[in-house]
């Protein structure tokens, strides 16, 4: 390998090497800065435009606006169902997350801490659900929701989100719970503590870091989901934020200032949380892909 490596590179001397490294570093910085601009400029323009009138957006799309002009924001606040959509999203996401973390931890705890026949199979069963694109089963799901009488209700969304969130949660939590030492547990068992008490008082406080990872991995796709509400929800008063945004964008399609305000308002909560917790977000959202 060495020989072939030498023939590819031109065996640089020490001084030329130093300058190559310097040029390379400069190139790297330029590319990274350019990329960061491409990532951030659209978001900045979106926020700027939220404070502009149509004329201002069309004539000077990149200028800094008058941030005290809240006409667009008040319009959204008073004339649309925006707050309602936001509330619905909070409710659906909150209930789903509570159920996912509770049920996911229960299953993971049983699989990781007890030896019983079929535990490996049950883990495999959960993990198999990781990669299945449930969108393609939307027709049977639609009919199932109708038969259960929960079509056009938040319950339809919550049960689907819980089912799709469980595989990742069980996977992450099982891996983590397996690494916990068993000494504490055994000592408590010797003292006659019940299994439920051991789980609740001793083990659960230790699994919080894994819960954060599993939580973030699920909360973002659930908060952002558009597909299932599109199929299950018809009443305007029940729509979640992405879905409400879609109908609101159609309604105000000529008032660009209001459109950009709507986009800005709907991403602001998640951007602020992301900036505050960027490390947890990055770890959480890539944890399925990074071992």
């Amino acid at each position, binding site marked *: *390998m060495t020989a072939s*490596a030498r023939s*590819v*590179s031109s065996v640089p001397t020490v001084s030329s*090497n130093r300058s*190559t490294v310097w040029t*390379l570093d400069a190139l*790297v*910085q330029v590319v*990274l800065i350019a*990329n*960061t601009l491409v*990532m*951030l400029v*659209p*978001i900045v323009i979106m926020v700027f435009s939220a404070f502009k009138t149509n004329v201002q*957006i*069309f004539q000077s*799309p*990149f200028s800094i606006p008058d941030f005290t002009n809240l006409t667009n924001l008040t319009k959204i606040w008073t004339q649309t169902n925006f707050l309602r959509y936001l509330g619905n999203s909070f409710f659906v996401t909150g209930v789903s997350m509570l159920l996912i973390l509770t*049920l*996911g931890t*229960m*299953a993971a705890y*049983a699989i990781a801490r007890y030896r019983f026949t079929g535990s490996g199979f*049950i883990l495999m069963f959960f993990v198999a*659900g990781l990669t299945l*694109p*449930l*969108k*393609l*089963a*939307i*027709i*049977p799901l639609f*009919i*199932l929701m109708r038969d259960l009488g929960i079509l056009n209700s938040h319950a339809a969304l919550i*049960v*689907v989100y819980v*089912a*799709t969130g469980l595989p990742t949660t*069980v996977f992450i939590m099982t891996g983590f719970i397996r690494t916990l030492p068993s000494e504490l547990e055994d000592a408590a068992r010797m003292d006659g503590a019940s299994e439920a008490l051991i789980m609740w008082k001793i083990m659960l406080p230790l699994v919080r870091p894994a819960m954060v990872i599993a939580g973030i991995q699920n909360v973002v796709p659930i908060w*952002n989901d*558009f597909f299932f509400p599109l199929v299950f929800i018809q009443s305007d008063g029940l729509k979640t934020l*992405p*879905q409400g945004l*879609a109908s609101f964008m159609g309604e105000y399609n000529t008032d*660009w200032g209001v*459109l950009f305000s709507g*986009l800005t308002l*709907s*991403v602001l909560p998640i951007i602020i949380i*992301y*900036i505050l917790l*960027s490390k947890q*977000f990055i770890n959480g*959202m*890539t944890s399925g*892909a990074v*071992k």
Partner: protein
Amino acid sequence: MFTKQLTGRRLWIAALIMPPLVFVCLFIVYPIISAFAYAFFEWSGLARGDFVWFENFHKVLFVEPFASRTVNAFSHNVFVFFALMVFQNGLGFVLAYFLWRELPGFRFHRIAVFLPVVLSTIVVGFLWRLFFHPLFGPVNAGLKALGLGFLTQPWLGQDTTALWSIVFANAWHMVGFPTLVFLAGMQRIPGEVLDAVRMETQSEWVKITKIVWPLVAPSATVVFTLLFVGAFNWFELPYIMVGLEGSPHGSTDVLGLYFYRTAFGNQSGAPPDFGAGSALAVLIFLFIAIVAGTLTIRMRRREIEL
């Protein structure tokens, strides 16, 4: 006493396992199995009719106008997959390699590149739909401001650029994901290995092709497979940016849009067809499962344990 404790324990395990298992069975396993079964029946609206063997499959694959629509949509999914492979995963690898040098400011760049990933596809879709607007969009305005006025065009309004524009929006949205997965892979390469390479060669190219690329193979397996599944499930972004019909003239039609239109009907009056819709769903599902499975197995072989 002993047996009693054992049954109590069994009950306790069952109580922990059963509720989550029921959820997954009822809302994932049952619908997916049903999707396969539904494809073999005739449907009129929401009512299931006779068992018709492979008629629905035959319809979507060989009967016009379904057949040419299927082929058209499928070819676009293939294009989207390869385009994103280069502009999302390829760029992600380059960015990861650059971030890995940990030059001043890399923490900031890392946060910036991942920021769009946390946004909803709906917001990203609307944002770029407004940005690509031919008359008032900031993209054309920016090109004019840079003296590149001759490049301005109706990005989403013509066959030649519409699909590319959506691909661009997707890459902007998701490039942070492969970047940070690759970066995590690179950061796990042991220092001794890198020191040894430095002794052997000064060439960055050799370092990338012979050391970094083979050692981040597990990351590559994951992002390639996820991109494949994502590209053949593509729905939200084209739905928001160009609508359910894959306009203009079907030049952005993909399997997700086509499946949804077939199953639930569309504005131009085509009635819902659960039979043909289910057949499409089954075909897409099998295609994804077989290719993603093969891809994963073949790429896993390339991975090296450290």
